[in-house]
């Protein structure tokens, strides 16, 4: 249900905040870890959940997410299990918008039609397919439209105006603006050209803009105030989950998200 995304972004806007999208790799670090971790993100103030379905060859990802993808697969997570996991999340009271993120091959193996229908029926609100650029996404974005799910394309600093327009025409929900030319992973500072690039995208579309890749600190988010509608924090959360003993994990993740959202202190 893509409207939920618009509502969540509108609420953040009304509060004069940049919305926070928190990422989890499904089934990482244990098969049953995801529901409690998602609840911790919500408790910390995350506005949306991005749920990554693992792929063996995540070529847009840095070392952190490569490890989380591999570990989730080793622990038995499959794309076939994802509708069930989404249902569990919904049943556990995670009501924030949920965006599924994965690579194309697992979707194709499941069957594009069935995949979109099944995750939509389970309660997903949107889909991001990292290696499906606008030229190749007609089938997938069309199916998302039929299922009332948002299809969220990615843009990069290297995207030309022409490509920004192309992606905007297929997009719904929001546009994922990759902050730098690079793979996922924590970075200290935002790229200095980020503002100019976001302006360029803004001129071409009225859709909300979410910035991701490298975002890991409260100051990054503050710096994006007025420039972006949302941020996506992924590797920083995964790093934290990896580094924290199991019993303390949810507490630590909640605390980190509170810092990111400005609810809590460092």
């Amino acid at each position, binding site marked *: 249900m893509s409207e939920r995304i618009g509502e969540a972004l509108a609420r953040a806007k009304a509060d004069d905040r940049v919305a926070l999208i928190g990422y989890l790799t499904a089934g990482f670090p244990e098969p049953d870890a995801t529901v409690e971790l998602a609840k911790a993100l919500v408790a910390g103030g995350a506005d949306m959940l991005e749920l990554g379905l693992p792929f063996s060859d995540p070529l847009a990802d840095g070392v952190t997410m490569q490890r989380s993808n591999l570990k989730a697969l080793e622990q038995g997570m499959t794309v076939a299990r994802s509708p069930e996991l989404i249902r569990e999340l919904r049943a556990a009271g995670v009501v924030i918008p949920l965006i599924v993120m994965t690579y194309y091959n*697992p979707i194709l193996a499941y069957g594009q039609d069935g995949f979109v229908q099944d995750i939509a029926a389970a309660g997903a609100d949107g889909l991001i397919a990292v290696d499906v*650029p606008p030229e*190749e996404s007609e089938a997938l974005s069309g199916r998302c439209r039929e299922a009332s799910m948002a299809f969220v394309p990615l843009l990069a600093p290297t995207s030309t105006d022409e490509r920004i327009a192309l992606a905007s025409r297929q997009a719904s929900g929001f546009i994922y603006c990759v902050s730098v030319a690079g793979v996922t992973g924590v970075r200290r500072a935002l790229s200095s050209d980020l503002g100019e690039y976001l302006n360029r995208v803004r001129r071409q579309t009225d859709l909300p803009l979410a910035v991701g890749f490298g975002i890991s600190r409260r100051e990054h988010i503050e710096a994006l105030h007025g420039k972006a509608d949302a941020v996506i924090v992924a590797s920083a959360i995964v790093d934290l989950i990896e580094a924290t003993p199991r019993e303390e994990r949810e507490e630590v993740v909640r605390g980190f998200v509170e810092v990111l959202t400005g609810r809590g202190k460092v």
Partner: protein
Amino acid sequence: MSNDAPVLPDERGRFGEFGGRFVPETLMTAIGELERAFAEAQADPAFRDELDALLRDFVGRPTPLYFAENLSKRLAGEDANGEPRVRIYLKREDLAHTGAHKINNAVGQGLLARRLGKRRIIAETGAGQHGVAAATVCAMLGQECIVYMGAEDVRRQALNVFRMKLLGAEVRVVDSGSRTLKDAINEAIRDWVTNVETTHYLLGSAVGPHPYPLMVREFQSVIGGEAREQLLGVEGRLPDYAVACVGGGSNAIGLFHPFYMDESVHFIGVEAGGEGLDTPRHAAPLSAGRPGVLHGAYSFLMQDEGGQIEETHSISAGLDYPGVGPEHSFYKESGRATYATATDDEALTAFRLLSETEGIIPALEPAHALAHIVKLVRDVADGTVIVVGLSGRGDKDMEATAKALGVKLT
């Protein structure tokens, strides 16, 4: 080629349903630029002239087409006049500079990178042959060269690692995944995503997003183009079979493509059967896989039920890859080519056979093509003419084969 040749790939980079460009958005602009630069270069006589001159003077082309009379007689016997029943010709890419066909594509892309104004070159390598070819061309053209190579392949192909370093390249060892060619490509793509403004990715096989399968095919078609002319010269006719090993598929497509419109020429691609197709330890996506998306293209793949890429095995590092070029998938589906497999053991036997009968030590990759010839000749008519792509020489495989044959070196 005749005018009725289908114009493939189409403008979306599709060979039928196969191919396309499935990459992160960050790369799309650069891939578009590459496509335009390649099209312009192809239409530019000055580019062609420079490439042809380098292929002649630097690479040593044309490579010979050698009539393997001893092998022909050994495999198929003689007729009443003492002539071999079947005539097998070897297209000697092993005699090209650096010892394999990979140099044809490396020279072409190196020149193209210069045209694009990109001085930093990255490449992946499995057997090390493409890495050596890339490093060689970069040394000649004054380009920086970084080669990604899986840790397992670094072990199997230590000699080539040393060669690359001698040529001034930096070799980055890849420790992720199965630590072979697939993972080296993942890592090269990650580098490219990060450094796309300054860097050209010199991909070594007919795989990847459009325009790579087209571009690599065009640079490798010199193999089939020469072979066709040479055969018409010595035999006065076209071959009945063109046979080549298929890893990513570049030497095979380079041999086949110029014969595409010659319908009487049967194409046979030979994949790595590893320990057998009845085991999981092989690298034969066309023979035992399903279509899917890996490394930017829709093509046959070795994958599990859930779409996760499976680990592969082959005694030959150059064939140890779970994917294959999209044009081969198209050839398979359209029936233009057939695809067979040869196991590790069969390839080793053929490796020794060619060494002993002809005094030519082949690389383990084309030994797979030769292994299939051993079976093929049993069923063909007298007078059959076969051309085999001898894609590389065996020096790099001395350690691996000695080990497999139970011989201890020093």
